[in-house]
């Protein structure tokens, strides 16, 4: 054995030539932080009403009180929407990356494999049947009922999905995608029955919610979603080393000192929590969870230690961009943001399939 202190100097040259993807990823983080800040400012500045962010800021700086219009547009409409959009974008991208690490496949995405549908079912259940809860419970949970139900739905479907598609520590991609279709269909059918049962007011709520829109963003929704999303993203980055080891297989990860079962439970919990509150707040927004991690892996590699934080930043930026398009393309009407992300994301997904067919045909 070579002693630890002994290094081969002749190898110095070849080592320097190896691109250090960790350093590149950290540089990319800085760029992404700037892009996110830019996107936040643009989204605050632009909107259907034509209210000027700069005018309002100038008033604030000079101590002049804002007029009613400025207060409502900036503080009650645009700012909560930007906050919720940032949170949800980060949640969707990080959930996608964690799920892909957990299933060891770049095609796993909560929206595609039925987790989003399960969370949606939970949300619909709470909207339609929430009235049957005892009044005391309703008052206790208040606005948390729908997010909590969405979380439970997402959690249950992730557990079923993992159970069905993973045998002996190996995940079958075909089984995972097919099980996702089945789960999605089942959730859709039950949701259909519930929609049939719903009264007019509930139907309005449901339709609004199902379109996948940020138009309903309020401070209350942001305050509910915020802590859950921030905690689950923080928890996910804490799992980064475990997810890296898991890429070698469950057995190898265990031999590398990872408490695999506990880590998988934590990952599933974090995915379900983030997806659940995101779906409850904004409905189904697809493809962010698959496009963002894929682009980042191409750019700086699959190390989850840098992939997860960068996914949060890029996911938030991307969703702010999509929201800007959805608000301004046919203003003053709005395009549901789910349509924008699908138009942008679905071709990327097809491109991944085309380039790396081996992912599915194993």
């Amino acid at each position, binding site marked *: 054995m070579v002693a630890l202190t002994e290094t081969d100097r002749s190898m110095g040259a070849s080592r320097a030539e190896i691109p250090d993807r960790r350093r590149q990823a950290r540089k990319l983080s800085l760029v992404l932080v700037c892009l996110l800040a830019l996107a936040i400012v643009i989204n605050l500045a632009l909107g259907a009403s034509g209210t000027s962010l700069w005018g309002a800021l100038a008033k604030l700086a000079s101590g002049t009180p804002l007029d009613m219009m400025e207060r409502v547009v900036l503080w009650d409409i645009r700012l909560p929407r930007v906050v919720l959009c940032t949170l949800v974008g980060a949640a969707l991208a990080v959930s996608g990356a964690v799920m892909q690490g957990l299933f060891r496949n770049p095609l796993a995405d909560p929206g595609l494999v039925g987790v989003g549908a399960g969370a949606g079912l939970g949300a619909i259940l709470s909207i339609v049947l929430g009235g049957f809860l005892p009044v005391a419970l309703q008052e206790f949970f208040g606005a948390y009922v729908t997010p909590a139900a969405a979380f439970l739905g997402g959690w249950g479907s992730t557990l079923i999905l993992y159970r069905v598609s993973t045998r002996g520590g190996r995940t079958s991609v075909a089984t995972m995608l097919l099980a996702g279709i089945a789960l999605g269909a089942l959730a859709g059918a039950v949701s259909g029955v519930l929609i049939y049962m719903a009264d007019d007011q509930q139907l309005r709520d449901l339709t609004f919610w199902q379109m996948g829109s940020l138009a309903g963003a309020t401070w209350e929704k942001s305050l509910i979603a915020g802590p859950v999303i921030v905690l689950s993203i923080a928890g996910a980055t804490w799992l980064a*080393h475990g997810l890296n080891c898991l890429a070698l297989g469950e057995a190898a990860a265990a031999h590398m000192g990872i408490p695999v079962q506990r880590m998988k439970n934590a990952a599933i919990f974090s995915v379900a929590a983030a997806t659940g509150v995101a779906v409850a707040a904004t409905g189904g927004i697809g493809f962010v969870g698959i496009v963002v991690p894929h682009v980042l892996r191409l750019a700086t590699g699959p190390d989850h230690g840098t992939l997860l934080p960068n996914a949060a930043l890029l996911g938030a930026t991307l969703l702010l961009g999509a929201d800007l398009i959805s608000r301004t393309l046919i203003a003053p009407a709005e395009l549901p943001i789910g349509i924008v992300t699908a138009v942008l994301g679905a071709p990327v997904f097809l491109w991944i399939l085309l380039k790396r067919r081996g992912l599915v045909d194993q």
Partner: protein
Amino acid sequence: MTLQATHINLTLGQKSILRDVSLTAQAGEVTAIVGPNGSGKSSLLKVLVGEQPASGEVLLNGQTLTSYRPWELASLRGVLPQATVLAFPFTVLEVVRLGLAAGPDANHPDLPFEALAQVDLDGYAGRFYQELSGGEQQRVQLARVLAQVWRPLREGRPCWLFLDEPVSSLDIAHQLTVMEITRRFAQNGGGVIAVMHDLNLTAMYADRVQIMHAGQSAGAGPVPEILTDSRLSQVYGCPLRTSVVPQNAGVFVLPQAARQTAPAPPAA
């Protein structure tokens, strides 16, 4: 210090995989597990590393496997699987660094390069793992395991390497390179347990052999006692003779001959 497995029984479904197998491996030695296909070699190794629950007892350095915390076990022993498919496009260096981070030497950034040099993959650090050949991937995995368990002895206690067919997909030169690594690890006080198919390499490098036959141990001991004509013929179901130069056999290549003409491993 030893690895000691006693009365291991393993049944999967209706099928009995291992029946009352016991195995003792000493630190400072290379212990080989040999036997025909399906005789339970790899299953036994999986039980020894705790990957496959089975009845019986496995003691590593005198303690049961379950009494160690996951990270303690990871700093005490490395496990090399037969083949590893990677889910994402990691580079060779990133794979070896995963092993480094799992072991107790995580603050030695040069160690992955030294581990790669040992397995004759100098200059491969920046390459993509998924683009390498099977044999090269196998050596990257060995480098990862070595980066995790770099020192054969830690605070006076032996560390262990568990290798499942470490040379099965390698050319003869790299088979010798890898077996030399196992021998050095053992000579410096560590313990090595390897599932082997190649009986010549086993004879050259193993201190002890455990031979498996239909889920049972068919003998354990030093090489000359175990690799005998009658035992091998019976276990492998094929008339075999050891140390006999065949008459009129044409060309044959033995790893033993490579060792005599070039004492240093070819790649070092």
